[in-house]
Structures are given as C-alpha cells and as structure tokens.
C-alpha cells in the first residue's frame, strides 16, 4: 500500500518549552489535514529509521523549533548532506536524506525544513506566547505549501 504522497514530520520534546513547537505543529495540522494525502508524524528527534518514512512521498516538510532562525519561521529547501549529526543519537534532516540516498540508491523526495523560532527551552516550561504566535504563522504558511504541493502533483485543493 502506498503511503500518502505528502509527509509532514515534526520533532521536539513537549515538556521543554518552545521545543514543543514541532509536535504542536503536527498535532494542529493533523486535525484538519486529509489523511489520504498528508501523513503527519512526530517524534522526539530524527533517527535513522525515519529514512523509511520518506519512501514513496512526493514532498516532505520537516518541522522543528529553532533557537537561531529568524522569527516567525524560516522555510529552507534541503539537500542530502553528511554532517556531524551522523554521529549522535539525533540526526539532522539533511543527514537523514543522505541515509535515504545510501540505503535506497536513489535521491530522496524533495524536502523542506520549516524552522519555527523559539526562545525558551527549559524542562517543564510551557511554550511561550511569542513562540505560539510564530506557530500560527508557520501553520498558515504550511497550509499554503500543502495546497501548492497538491496542485503541483495534479490534484485538487
């Protein structure tokens, strides 16, 4: 069975302040996304087995909180890359794409990183007000991105 063509994958720790932005984004998008065309997944962090989740997709949107990016968010097309995250328990999306390429001997689907600006990452903190404003802006952008992706593959919005 083929998976839904679009994948939205967010990660972060829901109990570490604005690090919850990734899972929160996925939770809210899942509520109104068509599961037949968009699969919404989340996890604590990216790891090698998530390379298998990229299989059969036409486009992938990775979503993470960012300490360094511009507010409210930055959207960046990604290319597979070998980086230091290969050597840790948490991989970058670029490294994950590289693993996909090596495992499947084919290029990964087009992937975009949506980095939502966060400020506070303390254990036990709730997401901050500014981060939640950024989250709303990122969700609005993502809904347009999903609609564009659907048009691109010939479907209706």
């Amino acid at each position: 069975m083929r998976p839904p063509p679009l994948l939205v994958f967010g990660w972060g720790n829901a109990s570490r302040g604005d690090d919850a932005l990734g899972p929160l984004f996925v939770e809210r998008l899942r509520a109104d996304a068509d599961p037949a065309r968009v699969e919404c997944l989340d996890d604590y962090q990216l790891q090698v087995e998530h390379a298998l989740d990229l299989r059969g997709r036409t486009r992938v949107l990775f979503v993470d909180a960012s300490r360094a990016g511009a507010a409210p968010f930055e959207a960046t097309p990604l290319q597979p890359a070998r980086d230091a995250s290969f050597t840790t328990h948490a991989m970058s999306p670029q490294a994950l794409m590289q693993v996909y390429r090596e495992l499947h001997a084919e290029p990964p689907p087009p992937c975009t990183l949506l980095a939502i600006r966060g400020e506070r990452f303390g254990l036990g903190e709730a997401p901050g007000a500014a981060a939640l404003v950024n989250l709303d802006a990122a969700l609005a952008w993502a809904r347009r991105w999903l609609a564009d992706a659907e048009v691109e593959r010939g479907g209706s919005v």
Partner: protein
Amino acid sequence: MGFDLETAAAPEGLRRVAIDPVSRVEGHGKVTILLDETNRVQQVRLHIVEFRGFEKFIEGRPYWEVPVMVQRLCGICPVSHHLAASKAMDRVLGIDAVTPTADKIRRLMHYGQVMQSHALHFFHLSSPDLLFGFDSDLNRRNIVGVARAHPDIAKKGVLLRKFGQEVIRVTAGKRVHGTGSVPGGVNKPVARADRDLLRAQADQMLEWAQDAVTLVKQLHAQNPAMYDRFGSFRSNLLSLVRTDGAMDLYDGVLRARDASGALLFDGASDQSYLDLIEEEVRPWSYMKFPHLRSLGREAGWYRVGPLARVQNCDVIPSPLAEAQRREFVAWGRGEPVHATLAYHWARMIEVLHTVEVIRDLLDDPDILAGELTTTGTRRGEGVGVIEAPRGTLIHHYRVGDDDLVTMCNLIVSTTHNNQAMNEAVRAVARQYLDGHEITEGLLNHIEVAIRAYDPCLSCATHAIGQMPLDVALVGADGTLLDRVCKSSSGELQRDLLAPLGLGA
C-alpha cells in the same frame, strides 16, 4: 585515597587536553587529560558539564501522570523510564504482581525497546569504528560510510530498529509518549492485526540478529589482542536476574559479582536498593558515582549493562542466545570478560535474546486478551527497577494521600557506569596517549571506549543539547597553546581566539 589518574599530584604544572563533547553519545560530556611537559598522562576525567533536576520536574505531579511524564526526560530511552515508573507505582499502590496479560505486554514493550536501542547503537554509532578502524578517515567513520561499504549491514540496522519501534508502538499505543503501561497494569491488549504484522517479520529479524552476533564475534576473532586489551580493566558486575538466576531484563532480584565472578550478593529485593547502593558526589562532575555499600567507594564500584548482564546470569532463557552466551563465557577462560569492547558482543547477544523473546510473546494469546489491571492496598512508596538498554535503571517514589508525588529519586544506567567509564578512559589513555602527540585518531580512541558503554548522558545529567568538539591544550602558566575544533563536516580547525571556559 583516590583512584589512579583521577587526580594529578601537581595539576598546576600540566598541559590540558579537553575533548568536548564526546560525540556519538547523548547529552553533554567532555574528557580532560592533563599532560606533563613530556606528554605523559597525569590526570584523566570524564566530566559532566550540565545538570538539570528531573526529580523536581516530577515532584508535585499526580502519581498516575508519572509513567507518561518521565518519558519526556529522555528521547533515547523513554520506554525504559515509562516502565520503571509504572513498576514503582505498582508498588505504591500495593501491587506486587500485575496480571499475566499486563506482565507480558509490558515485557513485549520493554524487549522491543532494548532491541531497537541496541540495534541503533551497534549498527549506526559503533560499527563505523569497528568496521573501519579507530584511526580511519573521519569522513568514513559514520553510517553513510557503512552504508556505502556494507549496504546490507546498514539496512539490517535500520530495519531491526524499525521493527523494535513498531513493537513499542503496538504495545505503548503511540510512537511517542506512549500510554500503554499504567500503574497497576496496561490500558489495552495488543490488536490481533498488529500482532500478525509483527509476527510475520519476526523470523527475518531473528536471522539478522544472529548475523549481528556472528559479525561482532568475527571482529573479536580477527584481532583478539586488541579487542581483549583495549580499555580493559577489572570490575564488579551488577544487574537484575530472575529469581532462578536466569537473565531477565524486565523484573527480578539484584545480583552482584566481583571481578573474579564470585557472588557478592544474590536474590536481593529491588525495594531495598538503598541498603545496597550508595551514591557519592565528587566536586569535579555533576554525575554521581554509585558503589556497593558493603565494599565502599574504592572497591565497590561496578559495571552495569550488557557486559554485566550476560555474565551475571546463570543462563539466558532462550536457546539461540544461550548458545551464544556460552561461547562468550568460554572466551573468558574461567574468569569474567572485562574487555570494554566486549560490550558490543554482549549487546548483540542481548539483541538475539530480545528477538527470541519478542517472537515467543507474539505467539502468546495472553497479549491479545485478559485482565489488564489489578489492585492492591496502597503503601505510598515504591521502587521500580528495570534492566534498561544501558543497564540497571532505578525509579523510587513516595506519594502522599493527595496522590501527589512527594519524593522522586532516579539512578539511571549511565550513572552506574560512571566510574567504569572513567576507568575505561584512563586505561585507553595509558595505552594509546602516553608519550604521544594528540591526533584526531588518538582522541577517537578515547571516544570509542566511552561509546562502548552507549552512555546516555542526557539521562545521567538531565541535559540535552549539542556542542562542537573542542580540544584545548593549555600550558603550565595557563596560556592557551593550541585549540582544535571539529567542524560539523568533520574537519579539524585550529582556533586560538575562541574563549575556553572549560574547567578541568
């Protein structure tokens, strides 16, 4: 009296090398090495540089929330915390044994977690070093290098891990923040369709797990002198075992052996861990140093995890893994195997065992139906001990009449191995660094020794984060003599201008 190479006699006159952080481990760790003018090692320490209070995060919460909340402590072993907390809360509620269905579903979840964690560690974090050599090109020593040179190994690693994650999903309810285990039992049986899906893959996983044991045995056989000697030292061993002495990763009694394999204690209740284990604080690290009370701090430290478990038990209760255990034990020629790199071998024996157990549990009808929870007479205090992937994990709680947690104490696996990891680093420093110039390859030897323990410094230190690899040489007068940073691409760059800020 202290430990050899823990504290130099005259540290003010020594150069310092800092490896910061140790890569391919979780959380913040750094190693500092003090060298004299002729590059002789005088002091070696594995430091923990950050601390956050998990216990405070838990205290004040309702007890029924705790098995879910503790999963947020660590992104690496959330299921271990989920189950250890559940077991402790069983005791709080006065439940000494959950129903057969709950016991088997929890076991299935736990063995899935151990299996996927071990698979990640061996195939993706350690196999690059083991397959290509500790001094090999840095750009090759990663999973992409493995995938290029050994595509089957990389793919098996990914699929074994994926299988373990699916076992967790069908038992915990979700990929993340599972709620499957609750105080007193579990909240749902395994769905028949999920069981069938997993069972159809189990035999393939078993074959790959056997391949993994064969691979690691071949590595030992190809270079026995190096594998036996690298970072090797003698130590006590601690783990849970089943009441009859068999390996049990989910539940049992505490057993400890000395370095020669003689029993130090056996059959000890996990509820009395405080009578057996004492934690020592040392001023130079945030990670505590546990030891056996009966032997004291200098003789009582011990190792936990696969190396301890495979040798602490009398038998592994699954035939394929038991045959491998016997080969492993024979390698020691009558004494426990103390080689640091033997952790990998023991870890793969455990992968084989976990897959055998998972297969058998998937065939057990109890996981599909039966009583899910049970009740007891509330005690207000409980300890939950489990053999997590990295070793013995202890959760201890007190709960007030208002249902809120009033006390929480966690001793995580990596903390048990703190002294052992320091000993491993010192052993490697003696073997490979003494009198030599510092190179990336030599520094990697240090990291290889630490990685053998698969430390989760996130758990041990309550810290999560990333820092660049940073190596500093400081002269006797405090002057920065050299500074090497490992960039994200793996290139080494010298930078004398960046601030140090590292305490030795």
